[in-house]
């Protein structure tokens, strides 16, 4: 029996992923519990462990341009089961923020963002529902930003101040 020779290669991460994400990901020791329980991974090529490893290695371009980054349903099963308490969903959200900041956003998501920026809600108002609300004795227009122009203006100011406008459809 010859002795096993184990070579440990230390990898120096590229410094392209934010420190916040790299710090959050560094506790991962690649056990794969996240991937094993992931309902999306069972149905797509999304592999939670792989994304976290790529984040550790600073493989920014590979992550930000991928479909897989958007195949997580944020169900938190991985977070509940992770033996190292890696905030996996927070990492996914942060990576998505980076992706969007670099222009990687799907048209359907732009549509949702545009609804939010236009009426303060993610789904549009439908006349038939407005009428039905009245029939039910509810305010036909819900008492939200929809019913108050000043409140909607306030929300729009927040969106502008936080740089949301660039995401919205022109």
């Amino acid at each position, binding site marked *: 029996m010859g002795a096993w020779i184990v070579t440990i290669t230390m990898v120096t991460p590229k410094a392209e992923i934010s420190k916040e994400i790299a710090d959050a990901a560094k506790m991962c020791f690649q056990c794969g519990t996240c991937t094993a329980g992931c309902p999306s991974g069972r149905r797509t090529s999304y592999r939670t462990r792989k994304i976290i490893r790529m984040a550790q290695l600073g493989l920014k371009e590979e992550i930000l341009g991928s479909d897989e980054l958007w195949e997580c349903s*944020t169900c938190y099963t991985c977070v509940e089961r992770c033996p190292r308490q890696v905030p996996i969903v927070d990492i996914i959200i942060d990576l*998505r923020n980076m992706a969007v900041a670099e222009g990687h956003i799907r048209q359907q998501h732009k549509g949702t963002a545009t609804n939010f920026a236009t009426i303060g809600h993610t*789904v549009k108002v439908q006349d038939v529902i407005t009428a039905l609300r009245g029939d*039910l004795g509810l305010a036909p227009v819900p*008492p939200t*930003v929809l019913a108050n122009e000043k409140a909607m203006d306030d929300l729009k100011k927040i969106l502008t101040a936080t740089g949301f406008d660039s995401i919205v459809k022109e």
Partner: protein
Amino acid sequence: MAKYAFFLGCIAPLRYPGIEKSTREVCAALGIELVDLQDASCCPAPGVIRAFNKKTWLAAAARNLALAEQQGLPIVTICNGCYGSLFDAAYELAEDPELLAEVNKILKEIGMEYKGTTKVHHFAEVLYNEVGVEKIKNSITKPLDYQVAAFYGCHFLKPSAIKQVDDPENPHILDDLIEATGAKSMPRKQKMLCCGAGGGLKAAFGDVAKKFTETNLENMQASGAQFIIDVCPFCHLQFDGIQKDTDFNIPVLHLSQLLGLALGMDEKQLAFSTHITPVKL
């Protein structure tokens, strides 16, 4: 009498007004006072808006939290997404004074301030902890005799480290509330499997989301469930909308609608006409 600021969200008021209507009726019947959280916006949605721009998400959530703070009331939501966003934002802002200060710089531009005190609750959790199963049982005027599938969704219980509502892998709150009406919550496989709609999946990869939903529907059908009972209008929309393209036909009710039925509300008041999968009682 317990009093809450009622946070409507988007899908309940704008797609399923029967959920809003029954929530108001059920709360009135069970001694919970709801005050409209006027001028609120979308929570904003945790899986999309938060994924696009965290700063926007947090500042807009803080605005909603500040509106409740001005009323001196805790928030109650009827949606897991709203609960996820508002609870997480309230938690982050209460834990991190620097983050709170940063958000307040933005809120100052609209003449508002958030002090970090608003508590956020989910309707089902309020029913369980504030009203209690016994009181609900005793208030039922029309006991139900259905076999149903309890669907918890994800953001009602998770992340459990901060939510601490119930066991995230083997919960019982919703089953207990359902059974208070006389209905039977049927055991089934993969009870905690996500509906598939969250995280922007429904919008971007609808076919993947549908696969999640179909596995759930198969397990629900096999359990003998006659209805799906959810606590989230987004899960509700996903289950209700997807079935028209499948062989499944299991009507979907929000917990508030199930309780509304058991308290004597009729089909019209519950606005079943807006449901895509027909509701036959």
